[in-house]
């Protein structure tokens, strides 16, 4: 099974072991940029690997703590195939053994990638499988392209996303387009990418904290993955940081207008919300209490999980990350339909980690098997469709349209039925994001 990585294409040896628990691997250009930014921000204490396709030139100036790995395979096709996920996948499959080696010796592999291009879309799913092969679990953090990048990239991103859903243990998907309203309208294009990267890096930092810092209230990894897992699970994260007296108010205000949360609709439909607080030692109990209360109120049906890390130099500062997951299916089954409702009156006690214990126990086996099977079928379907594309029939296929919920048929001409921010005329299953078979 295990092939030795005899082939050399490595500029720097992949020795920087980040932590025994988790390893960060960026895939493709976009992922690498993100990781470079991050390494630049945090200094050299954290580092990761940067996985590159053969047609990309290796960056001349290596960032501290960031090791570049280029997969080469028997690649001879030429530069013109850059941006083709199929080629990237083929190369990655060829070097599967090396990818397995990269993932060895850690429990979790966190993959950061931008979907839509060649390397990110093609290599990330293979890397996820390699991680499984190496006995690690795969957690994907991916961004999808802006609308202006064109329908082809959008479609490639969507297909890769489908594939990743089957291959990863957990998936966080951040649509770039949604960050756009955060920026002033006349922002230059170059700056848009930088700004979005900055927002992402901030999120990644918080997320990494949540994963690695065994802080005040540690988050169990298993629990985190149980939250992120599922075929229809869609997660986004948002971060907000503030300083000063009214830091909490500012943070909650930021969340309320955050485009990724769709004016609170995302929270309403959420099945679980992870709150991770990074703050100085002066974090007041009242603040944590208030924050969790606000979150629970805006996401009444969600299970709220809380983690916190304290940092010595952070007095007066707070950073909060919300990881919002909406799951289409899974726990909603027949007679136990209402068991999904929020346990009423749950406090914001720090004893939250144990809440998921019971359901955790029942999830892993069934989830794993299902998803492996799914990955296979999904892969077949994709091969089919790729074949079609080669023939050139799908070239003019329409890109993804944004999902517009049809407004309530029969009640179209009646006054709207708004109850606590929800339009009750819209079918319940649509509002709660439940996917029907």
């Amino acid at each position, binding site marked *: 099974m295990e092939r030795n990585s005899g082939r050399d294409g490595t500029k720097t040896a992949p020795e920087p072991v980040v932590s025994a628990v988790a390893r960060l691997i960026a895939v493709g250009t976009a992922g690498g940029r993100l990781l470079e930014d991050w390494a630049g921000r945090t200094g050299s204490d954290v580092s990761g690997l940067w996985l590159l396709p053969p047609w990309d030139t290796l960056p001349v100036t290596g960032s501290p703590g960031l090791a570049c790995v280029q997969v080469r395979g028997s690649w001879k096709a030429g530069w013109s195939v850059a941006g083709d996920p199929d080629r990237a996948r083929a190369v990655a499959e060829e070097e599967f053994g090396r990818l397995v080696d990269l993932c060895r010796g850690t429990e979790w592999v966190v993959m950061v990638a931008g979907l839509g291009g060649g390397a990110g879309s093609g290599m990330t799913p293979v890397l996820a499988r390699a991680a499984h092969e190496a006995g690690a679990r795969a957690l994907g953090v991916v961004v999808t392209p802006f609308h202006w990048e064109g329908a082809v990239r959008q479609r490639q991103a969507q297909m890769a996303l489908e594939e990743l859903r089957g291959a990863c243990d957990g998936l966080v998907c951040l649509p770039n387009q949604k960050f756009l309203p955060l920026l002033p309208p006349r922002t230059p294009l170059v700056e848009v990418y930088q700004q979005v990267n900055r927002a992402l890096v901030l999120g990644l930092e918080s997320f990494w904290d949540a994963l690695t810092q065994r802080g005040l209230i540690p988050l169990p990894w298993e629990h985190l993955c149980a939250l992120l897992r599922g075929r229809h699970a869609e997660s986004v994260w948002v971060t907000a940081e503030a300083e000063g007296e009214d830091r909490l108010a500012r943070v909650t205000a930021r969340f309320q207008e955050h485009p990724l949360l769709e004016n609170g609709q995302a929270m309403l439909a959420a099945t679980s919300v992870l709150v991770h607080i990074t703050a100085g030692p002066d974090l007041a109990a009242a603040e944590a209490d208030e924050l969790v209360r606000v979150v629970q109120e805006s996401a009444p049906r969600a299970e709220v999980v809380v983690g916190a890390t304290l940092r010595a130099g952070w007095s007066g500062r707070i950073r909060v990350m919300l990881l919002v997951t909406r799951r289409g299916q899974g726990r*909603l089954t*027949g007679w136990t*339909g209402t068991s999904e409702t929020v346990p009423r009156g749950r406090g914001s006690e720090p004893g939250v980690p144990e809440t998921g214990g019971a359901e955790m126990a029942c999830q892993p086996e069934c989830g794993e098997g299902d998803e492996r099977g799914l990955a296979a079928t999904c892969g077949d379907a994709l091969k089919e469709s790729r074949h079609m594309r080669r023939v050139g029939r799908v070239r003019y296929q329409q890109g993804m349209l944004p999902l517009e919920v049809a407004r309530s*048929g*029969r009640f179209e001409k009646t006054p709207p039925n708004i109850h606590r921010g929800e339009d009750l*005329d819209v*079918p319940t299953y*649509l509002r709660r994001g*439940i996917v*029907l078979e």
Partner: protein
Amino acid sequence: MFDQSSIVVGLEIGTSKICAVVGELQPQGVLRILGLGQSKSNGVRKGEIVDMEQAELDIRRAVQEAEQMANVEVRSVYLAVTGGHIRGFNNCGLHIIQDPEVGVTEEDVKEVMRNARCMNLPAQEEVIHTVRQHFQVDGRGEVREPLGMSGQRLEVAVHVITGQLLRLQNSIRAVRSVHLNVEEIVFSGLASALAVLSAEEKQEGALVMDIGGGTTDYAVFAGGILRLGGVLAVGGDHLTNDLVCALKVSQSRAEQLKVDYGAAFVEDRIRGQTLDLTNDLGMPIRTVSLETLRRVMHLRLEETFELVRTHVEEAGLYDLIRAGVVLCGGCARIPQVTALAEEVFDLPVKVGRAQGINMLNPALDQPEFLTGIGLLRFAQQHRMRPVRRGFMHGLAERLRFLIQRG
């Protein structure tokens, strides 16, 4: 005058049907139903009239049928009103007792009630009912009957049910256009509660949910008085509409599927089952999943119950409901709906039956007709209440004012 006769008529303009009930008030508080007329309602959405002409036709048809059955001529009706604009809230009134030596007089009670009804309503809102909860003399205790008690200050807590004037006037106008007088307007949730609750249940505390075609009207009784009233503009129509969306079938087909195969739960044994839809020649055209149908209904009903529970809990009344929940309206017929309500409310749930009524025909004892029957019950209480004449008179006057403006 007709007012003085013992014949009363209740009219409910519902979203799925219009129902007129003729009853006779007999001595010892017995109510006898003489006739009932109904017609399909086509001009109403979510409890409010959207097509005036159609609604008039339907009202006329229903009233005619009731007249024929009861062999009376209907001239005035008690009209049930509903709609998402109706809401209930608590208010209180304060009055300084005129002569502390004599104690609380009837004048004082009248005055404090008048103060309680003076409230800062948004423009275009009108009071439908003012129900007094309890009195307090000098801020002490919960007094039922303050007459003769001595103190300085008399306070009263009331529950007020209000609706938007223009929307209420629509239904009043529709009734008047078929040459009927409106004697009183009654919140339909209150009417249903009066029909189904026994005196004991009212005392112990009960929640009545009338899930009709377009609205869910609910009312909480505790300690013998109405404590909370409210409307959610969600009903059987929404179930149908959800099915239209989920199964991609026509409105009428969805309605038929809901009636034939609907239930409040997704049982294990129906998983994977499908239903064949046939065209008018009986040829199968496509199949839909029974599980999907049930799940969509389950989610909508569960949500409706949860919303009501949240409202009741926020009003602080959940713990006062000891007799349980009573369901009525067309949706009370959905199989297993009581089990679902039991799960959500964590209280005993039953489907309502009319209380203390001499039925002309047992076939009329259906959950759909309870609002109409409750209107008769309201009329009965309304007419036989000489003690509180002052209060009721004021209310009647207010309503008459409202109706005449309409």
